[in-house]
């Protein structure tokens, strides 16, 4: 039996007494496409931040591919094959689009410790970054400064940086937030094309787009898992209608 890509066991997180995650247990199998939904402030991003190691849970356990990572640093988890994007765009605005992807690529390579070889000499890294940018349709903007490209392009760059790392588990935090319908369609294609050896967990509010990408859905409410299961069963559940789809 293969271990789940991600297993969360009785996870609890309090922010100074205020609960943001309350006894969450989840199991996500390799290759799965999981959508996490829930009202604003339900604790979706907080859950991601605990999976990545940005936040230490108050109690509970997190396992990546069968390995207990609860006490592991964020960078160590990245080396286990975990990548993420941010709800609030977190890029390097002073640098070029290509440089952002190169930083993503280099994070998992030994080259990042080399103090004597100029970054410009790593031709293969730059070629790989170009290739990635072509894939997400940003090839023409490779040399543009990130601070000067459009919002929708930044969203694509967020995904490109994560995908460049060839993650085994990819966390997407509202990849469609603030995009026009055409832009949403592009990102949707991009996510649909992610190979099956990458497990994808996505937080998204745009049901029309996101549901097509999901196989399983988890509904969070006040930090608790309210409904969890195959997509259609979760959608049909009256609790889902009540707390989420209703408004």
């Amino acid at each position, binding site marked *: 039996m293969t271990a789940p890509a991600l297993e969360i066991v009785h996870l609890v997180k309090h922010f100074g007494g205020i609960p943001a995650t309350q006894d969450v247990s989840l199991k996500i199998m390799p290759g799965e496409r999981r959508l996490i939904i829930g009202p604003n402030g339900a604790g979706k991003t907080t859950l991601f931040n605990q999976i*990545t190691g940005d936040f230490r849970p108050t109690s509970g356990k997190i396992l990546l591919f069968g390995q207990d990572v609860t006490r592991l640093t964020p960078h160590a988890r990245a080396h286990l094959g975990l990548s*993420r994007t941010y709800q609030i765009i977190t890029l390097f605005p002073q640098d070029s689009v290509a440089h952002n992807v190169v930083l993503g690529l*280099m994070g998992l390579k030994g*080259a990042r*410790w080399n*103090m*004597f070889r100029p970054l410009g000499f790593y031709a293969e890294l730059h070629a790989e970054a170009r290739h990635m940018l072509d894939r997400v349709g940003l090839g023409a903007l490779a040399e543009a400064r990130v601070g000067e490209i459009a919002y929708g392009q930044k969203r694509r760059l967020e995904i490109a940086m994560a995908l460049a790392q060839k993650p085994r588990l990819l966390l997407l935090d509202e990849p469609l937030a603030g995009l026009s319908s055409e832009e949403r369609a592009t990102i949707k294609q991009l996510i649909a094309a992610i190979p099956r050896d990458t497990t994808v967990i996505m937080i998204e509010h745009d049901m029309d787009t996101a549901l097509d990408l999901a196989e399983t859905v988890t509904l969070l409410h006040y930090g608790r898992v309210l409904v969890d299961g195959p997509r259609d069963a979760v959608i049909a559940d009256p609790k889902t209608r009540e707390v989420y789809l209703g408004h």
Partner: protein
Amino acid sequence: MRTVLLLLTAVVLASLPLFAGTFYINLASQILIAAIFALSLNLLVGYAGLTSLGHASFLGFAAYASAWASTNLGLGFAPAALLSITTTTLMAACFGLIALRATGLGFLMITLALSQVLWGLAYRWASLTNGDNGLTLAGRPAPFGIALDGAGAYYWFTLAVFAAAFTLMAVFVSSAFGSALKGTRDQPRRMAALGYNVWLIRWITFVYAGFWGGVAGLLYVYYHRYIHPTSLSITTSAEGLLGVIAGGSGTLGGPVIGAGLLVLLKNYASAYIERWNMLLGFVFLFIVLVIPEGIVPGVRRLLSRKGSGKP
């Protein structure tokens, strides 16, 4: 254009003792030493985003260590220098462990506190440091039998070390590691998520900066043939920081220009004005208000504006 300018600068710097008087040669040596110090501090301030107010620790400690090893242990210059640089780098490794528990203001306060401890020790531990009287070196080193006692000879020695320091630090910041370092300055959380050990990157940079601060300290004590606790004071650290910020932090030319300006002001102004520190304050206030990004980036911006024909 840039290459021509660089070559011209190199030729002028290398031939300076052939046409300049002793006063100016010595001034140039002091500028080069201050520039190495500022460049090393800039690794932290400009490239790691960690503002230190205790960088004099490394300059002062290295200077004391080599002077002490020469006078008290009777070591030759080379072994004394080796001992001094090794212990300074080790000290930087320890200081880094303590200071990097914080960033921002916390980091600044810890670096300041650590350097104040050293400063206090230099005054109080007189059996080791000779207290307020300072330590005097018998002379300057003579590498490969070449005496460095003359102003010109010492200038050339300093210039050679400066060239090596500048080149190695330039390579450091443009390397793969240097790019990662800049990433941790701009977006530390993202860098960690990408797989970078942000803490370790900062610590390595801290140690490297300490090493070059120590090199500046060696040149400093050879130049003056003397070391006093003031070299460990907050004034020395603050002057280095002013040089970095005025010249332009996060650039390679900035700290050199800033350090040069500082040494010149200090030497000229102090001859005419008693409260030269006040003048220094005004000059830097002017720079910070008019070109907050520093001289080098400011001039670059002005030039590019002219070049592109925009108003």
